[in-house]
């Protein structure tokens, strides 16, 4: 692990601030997105951004365990997206209850 100071520390701060703004923007799309699929795509991006945030934070504090957490987060995001996609298709074919 190299020393985190100077330009790297600056880059980490910029990254954390930018990713926070990007997560807020994606959450705005979750609130607004006209269809359920839009919301799922937005939550997918929130998961990717949280993965990036965790990885950057791991570099900041020098704790490599956070990278494992990012990996697990990506796995959960994929499973959730697939589950909701199947749900939307079943709602269309009338197999599941529609609540809207």
């Amino acid at each position, binding site marked *: 692990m*190299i020393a985190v100071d100077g330009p*790297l520390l600056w880059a980490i701060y910029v990254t954390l601030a930018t990713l926070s703004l990007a997560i807020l923007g994606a959450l705005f799309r979750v609130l607004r997105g006209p269809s359920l699929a839009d919301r799922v795509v937005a939550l997918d991006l929130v998961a*990717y*951004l949280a993965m*990036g945030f965790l990885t950057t934070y791991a570099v900041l504090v020098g704790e*490599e365990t956070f990278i494992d957490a990012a990996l697990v987060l990506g796995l959960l995001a994929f499973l959730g997206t*697939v589950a909701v996609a*199947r749900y939307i*298709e079943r709602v*269309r074919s009338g197999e599941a209850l529609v609540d809207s």
Partner: protein
Amino acid sequence: MIAAVAGVLMLLGTAFMMVAAVGLLRLPDLYTRMHAVTKAGTLGIGFVLVSAAVAFGDVSVATRAVVAILFVLFTAPVSAHMIGRAGYLGNVSLWEGTSFDDWRAGYDDLQREGGGTVSEHGVGREDSPAARSH
């Protein structure tokens, strides 16, 4: 030197993820938003993870970063495909500026062709000498 490389990679990844978020907010319909999120998001995550691997300079961290990158590269297209398909089948409307709809243009013909082939096949089998002899 290593710190500079890690910092540049990290900022590059951040720029890609910012592009993904802006695309999600600004693009007009589900399908264009999905393409922004999948492509830019995947590249952004990849750059940030490579930056972490460079900063730690450690085989175990590099291995986990490579595994995470491969995982995202394999799953992002799959989930985007499933969501796009579900959205299309769920009648999420396309942007009015869409130049053509490949599925609508080709899928109905494909269905008809497939059905025709199956029925012809069935008729052919009934009339075939092998079917008559049984």
